[in-house]
């Protein structure tokens, strides 16, 4: 197994799957302004996907493109964290997930900006500006809704309770992670935990939300061993055009 290819798939698939989920709000968000903001976020993530998967395809060296990787792989080939593939549910859960992910991405992309691999460092530096804005927006929304009405507080706490067991998967430490650390490409994701914890603690306390009292963490997304039942449905929608009209272009 090529660890660099695997690592790049993880970065690209995280961005792709969350980007697609976020795009599902287009046209149906609770306010016009939020609708456009979510569409912008989705487009940022899809843009990052093109860079990560484009590089992954080069590293793989089998003549596949970023589009091939996005549209012609099946569930078991995806390497995204499970938290990013579960359905949006309501606006609250969508923003809570965005926040939990952004709070990881900012320190993570900061670390990757110093990667020994120039391409990784370049993609990370570009993505970091977007992630920094996403984090500002998602953390403020989590605080506004958590510290809002009784109903918005309840919904945000429900969202947090639901997502929490999925968040732990972001902090992996497997053979690929180790190989990337040894090569100076990236630190192991597990080393992001304390800075993530601090950010989470601050935001949740300002949002009047309580951190769930469990350290249980689902896994299986980042290594492709076991995705949730939701990813297949999502891919069916996302990939239908390329599957129905192979090779279709604009």
């Amino acid at each position, binding site marked *: 197994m090529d660890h660099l290819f695997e690592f790049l798939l993880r970065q690209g698939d995280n961005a792709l799957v969350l980007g697609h989920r976020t795009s599902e709000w287009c046209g149906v968000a609770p306010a*016009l*302004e939020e609708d456009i903001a979510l569409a*912008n976020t989705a487009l940022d993530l899809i843009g990052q996907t093109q860079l990560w998967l484009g590089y992954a395809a080069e590293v793989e060296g089998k003549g596949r493109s970023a589009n091939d990787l996005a549209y012609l792989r099946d569930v078991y080939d995806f390497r995204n964290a499970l938290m990013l593939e579960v359905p949006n549910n309501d606006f609250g859960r969508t923003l809570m997930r965005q926040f939990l992910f952004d709070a990881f991405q900012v320190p993570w992309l900061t670390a990757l900006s110093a990667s020994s691999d120039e391409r990784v460092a370049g993609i990370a530096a570009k993505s970091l500006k977007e992630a920094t804005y996403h984090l500002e927006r998602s953390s403020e929304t989590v605080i506004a809704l958590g510290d809002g009405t009784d109903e918005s507080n309840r919904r945000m706490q429900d969202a947090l309770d639901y997502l929490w067991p999925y968040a732990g998967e972001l902090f992996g430490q497997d053979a690929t992670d180790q190989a990337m650390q040894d090569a100076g490409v990236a630190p192991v994701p597990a080393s992001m935990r304390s800075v993530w914890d601090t950010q989470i603690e601050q935001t949740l306390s300002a949002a009047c939300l309580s951190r769930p009292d469990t350290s249980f963490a689902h896994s299986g997304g980042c290594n492709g061993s076991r995705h949730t039942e939701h990813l297949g449905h999502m891919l069916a929608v996302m990939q239908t055009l390329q599957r129905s009209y192979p090779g279709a272009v604009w």
Partner: protein
Amino acid sequence: MSNEWPLWEIFIRGQHGMSHRHVGSLHAADAEHAMKNARDVYTRRNEGVSIWVVEAEKITASSPSAKGPMYDPSRGKVYRHPTFYDIPDDVGKM
């Protein structure tokens, strides 16, 4: 109590512009939120380098029905335009 967020007027200074121009309005819960919404709604095609947001109800506007007394008296007073001067050549472009 209204469930609508208050209305904000958005002003943006473009890449080469000297002044902020009114570009439109949007709804937001507070000034910070209005700033972020303005960024997302009005600068997504790289239009701006600076944003002002002003709560619409804080703006005092002239009344359309007072148009006559407000603006008609300034009509026909061409001498208020500095167009009767010959500009010496060595002044260059004005």
